[in-house]
């Protein structure tokens, strides 16, 4: 039984959630990132898609991401109850019965995949299925509580929407789609580990093996630097290989260069308390801007080509 006793005990038999609780179950903030990256991939992909079908594809991707988020919350209600950041979610707070959350997530996920297949194409639907299953089974169930590299695996789950978005337009997944996947994949560890460094106490309390908890801040900072250093050549590669124009290449080099400078500052920091982690906070903030700008550069580069 995956749902542990504390979560079940916290849900009263009369739990009857409001629509806002169902909406919160979809992790709307994560959906924003997913929608943005998938939309960028759809703009970069060659070919024309009717605006209504493009809207449908984005809707399916967003709903599938929401379903995966809901399944994640259903499975993790026990550890969510232990962290300040997540304790007020509908399941740990006891506002929703676990069975209701599970049914809601399954119906949404299956619905999104079916509509993607019927309205767009089955290649996109297949990748959408993979993205949900990967996030739920590989990340949430299998690896999150077992390895401090959980965020790396989670990065792959968060990167699938670009592949789905591209497939929705063209029906295939060429190398540039996978390059966009690789950018999100390598961007995720520095982004989340920077956050985990100054939120360490919260994760430790829940027993989640986040890298700062298991290996300490110094090792985490070296890992942040390593992934950021890898991100720079990978993000510039599409331009060097001629898949994109120079504009994107210059933007990727500048953004990746600054990301690396911030990661070096993080690597040099020795603070152990959140109050002394200004470099980590700066890197976390910039990482959000980085992803928005590098994908925007890719879109502009394609539109100008």
């Amino acid at each position, binding site marked *: 039984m995956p749902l542990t006793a504390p979560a079940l005990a916290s849900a009263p038999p009369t739990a009857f959630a409001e*629509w806002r609780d169902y909406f919160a179950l979809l992790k709307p903030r994560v959906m924003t990132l997913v929608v943005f990256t998938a939309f960028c991939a759809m703009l970069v992909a060659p070919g024309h898609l009717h605006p*209504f079908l493009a809207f449908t594809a984005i809707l399916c991707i967003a709903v599938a991401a929401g379903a995966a988020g809901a399944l994640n919350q259903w499975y993790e209600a026990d550890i969510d109850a232990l962290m300040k950041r997540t304790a007020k979610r509908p399941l740990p707070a006891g506002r929703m019965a676990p069975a209701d959350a599970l049914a809601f997530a399954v119906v949404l996920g299956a619905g999104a995949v079916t509509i993607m297949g019927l309205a767009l194409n089955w*290649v996109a639907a297949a990748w959408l299925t993979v993205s949900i299953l990967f996030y739920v089974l590989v990340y949430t169930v299998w690896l999150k509580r077992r390895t401090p590299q959980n965020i790396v695996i989670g990065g792959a789950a968060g990167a699938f929407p670009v592949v789905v978005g591209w497939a*929705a*337009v063209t029906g295939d997944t060429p190398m540039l789609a996978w390059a966009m996947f690789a950018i999100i994949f390598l961007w995720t560890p520095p982004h989340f580990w920077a956050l985990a460094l100054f939120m360490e106490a919260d994760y430790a309390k829940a027993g989640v093996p986040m890298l700062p908890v298991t290996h300490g801040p110094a090792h985490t900072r070296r890992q942040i630097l390593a992934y950021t250093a890898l991100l720079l050549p990978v993000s510039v590669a599409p331009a060097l290989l001629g898949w994109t124009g120079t504009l994107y290449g210059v933007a990727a080099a500048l953004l990746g260069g600054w990301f690396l400078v911030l990661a070096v500052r993080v690597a040099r920091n020795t603070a152990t308390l959140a109050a002394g982690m200004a470099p980590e906070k700066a890197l976390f903030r910039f990482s959000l801007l980085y992803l928005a700008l590098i994908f925007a550069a890719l879109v502009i580069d394609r539109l100008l080509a």
Partner: protein
Amino acid sequence: MSLDWTPAERAAFEARRRQRNGALGLLLFALVALFYGITLVRMTPGMKAAPAVAAK
């Protein structure tokens, strides 16, 4: 369902149920509109989706 609710608890429960049913109604209407739109677009000559579909 608990039978020993106070009138205030029952009223709160019924208000939540009304709200949720309203949201469900809107969702079903949106789904109908979505399928209607998809059907129109897919049935209009010259409106092709991705090659994987168009090749059929």
